[in-house]
């Protein structure tokens, strides 16, 4: 396999393709107690994240919107992984995830903590795609903080 395909397959790993084609928790939430919109003005990706909190814990989470394979898969996996997590755990995961996609850490060392998020390790080879991977995380943070304005990658 040439390096071209290796790089691309590193980006579009099977788990990412799977989640982009069949996003999980992909619906609005009527009884959400908070939600936030995220927008990447560069490519037009737009997501809404819905949360139902139980004290400090994410009891339920869903999303809807449109985006590329990377941003959609990132949103889908985020909702899967954060259900039941506390706010502090979510923030800690975002930090780890951010380090991973910006190439500050490598997936191998962090796999246990990152779980499926490790699939995004290939993103660091594509600097312009980092914002795709992190858009939904910024949106989640706005939702957790109860911010009214649209989260933006810019």
């Amino acid at each position: 396999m040439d390096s071209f395909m290796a790089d691309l397959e590193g980006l579009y790993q099977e788990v990412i393709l799977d989640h982009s084609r069949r996003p999980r928790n992909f619906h609005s939430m009527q009884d959400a107690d908070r939600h936030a919109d995220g927008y990447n003005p560069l490519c037009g990706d737009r997501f809404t994240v819905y949360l139902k909190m139980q004290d400090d814990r994410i009891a339920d989470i869903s999303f809807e919107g449109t985006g590329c394979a990377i941003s959609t898969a990132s949103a889908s996996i985020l909702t899967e992984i954060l259900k039941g997590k506390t706010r502090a755990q979510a923030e800690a995961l975002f930090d780890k995830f951010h380090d991973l996609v910006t190439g500050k850490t490598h997936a191998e060392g962090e796999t246990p903590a990152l779980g499926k998020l490790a699939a995004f390790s290939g993103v660091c080879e594509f600097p312009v795609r980092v914002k795709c991977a992190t858009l939904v995380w910024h949106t989640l943070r706005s939702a957790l903080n109860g911010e009214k304005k649209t989260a933006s990658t810019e």
Partner: protein
Amino acid sequence: MATTHESILAPARESLAHTFDVRRIREDFPGLKQKVHDKPLVYLDNAATSQKPQKVIDAVVRYYTEDCANVHRGVHLLSERASYVYENTRRKVQKFLNASDLREIVYVRGTTEAINLVAQTFGKRNVQAGDEVLITGLEHHSNIVPWQMLCEEKEARLQVAPINDRGELILEEFEKLLSDRTRLVAVAHVSNALGTINPVRQIVQMAHALNVPVLVDGAQAVPHMKVDVQELGCDFYAFSGHKVFGPTGIGVLYGKFELLDAMPPYQGGGDMISSVSFERTLYNVVPYKFEAGTPDVAGVYGLEAALDYVKKVGLGNIVSYEHALLSYATEAIQQIPGVQILGTAREKAGVLSFILEGVHPHDVGTILDHEGIAVRTGHHCAQPVMERFGVPATVRASLALYNTKQEINSLAAGIQRVKTVLG
């Protein structure tokens, strides 16, 4: 020592090439010779900016190495040389656009600044509460937002003439929106997102019938067609140097002399005055009234070389070559299953905007980039156009005179590769 005369004589000396040889053209552009991701660069993002011929790069270097001086200020030789090129290029721009008067050519940073200049001077003076500015549904953000800002400030209304499913302006609707409240019409000559060529002459005739002046955003037109402002009849015409093989940071506003002369200045500063005291400042004459501060002299050197280059190749040659290439590309891309081309206007230039079923344009762009193919993905600073077609984004391949059929074949193969990777 190179003198400014050399660049003036160069096109004549090399004689006009009547035959168009794309391989020779490509030799003129050093940027095209590189590889990206170990693949030969296929540069199809010309609507964003064009690559530069060596002569343009050399001209900029020549200014900084030999003629580096301010213009209109020094009595010394370097300033004289720089001022000569600066003003001689204005003459070349005048010829390029076929403006009737040299004073109708104003240097600006680019199309965006040209439009803002008109909005902030002509607009502020002539648009009042209850008035209207009329644009089209094809416009780039730079021909929307300055008018929105003006209308908001003046409590005026921005009217938008709709486009049809082919991405063409619906002229009848446009005409209906023209009224005695319309103070200005602002239209793209060529749409950056779809490539549609607007019928500017007809638009101007309709507007002028009601004494409404017309501004034309020519950013996407000048690299692809002969522009004659007198034939078009428009009142303002704006373009950017960097889209027509010149440097970034330099552009042109053409305006009819009587309009420019009646307009207040844009920015205050040096060069735009004839005398200054703390009590009173007398403004300089057109066009200097609009050129406050030290201009982008190096940019003007580059622009001169760019216009010389276009002249040498011949706009007629460019038009016919690109027309054939766009037909070839349209044919090659639309036969790929799952591809839908957006913008199928009968009069089109330079742009192929498309979506691939089930794949987001951003993912298409990443994979094409890894094949060495540079395209633009996104909304192309024309979000209302995207909304009209119900898509958040498209992939845009935009052509220039140096692109080849082989490169189109690479694009088609790249799209197939996208389907393999993401299919």
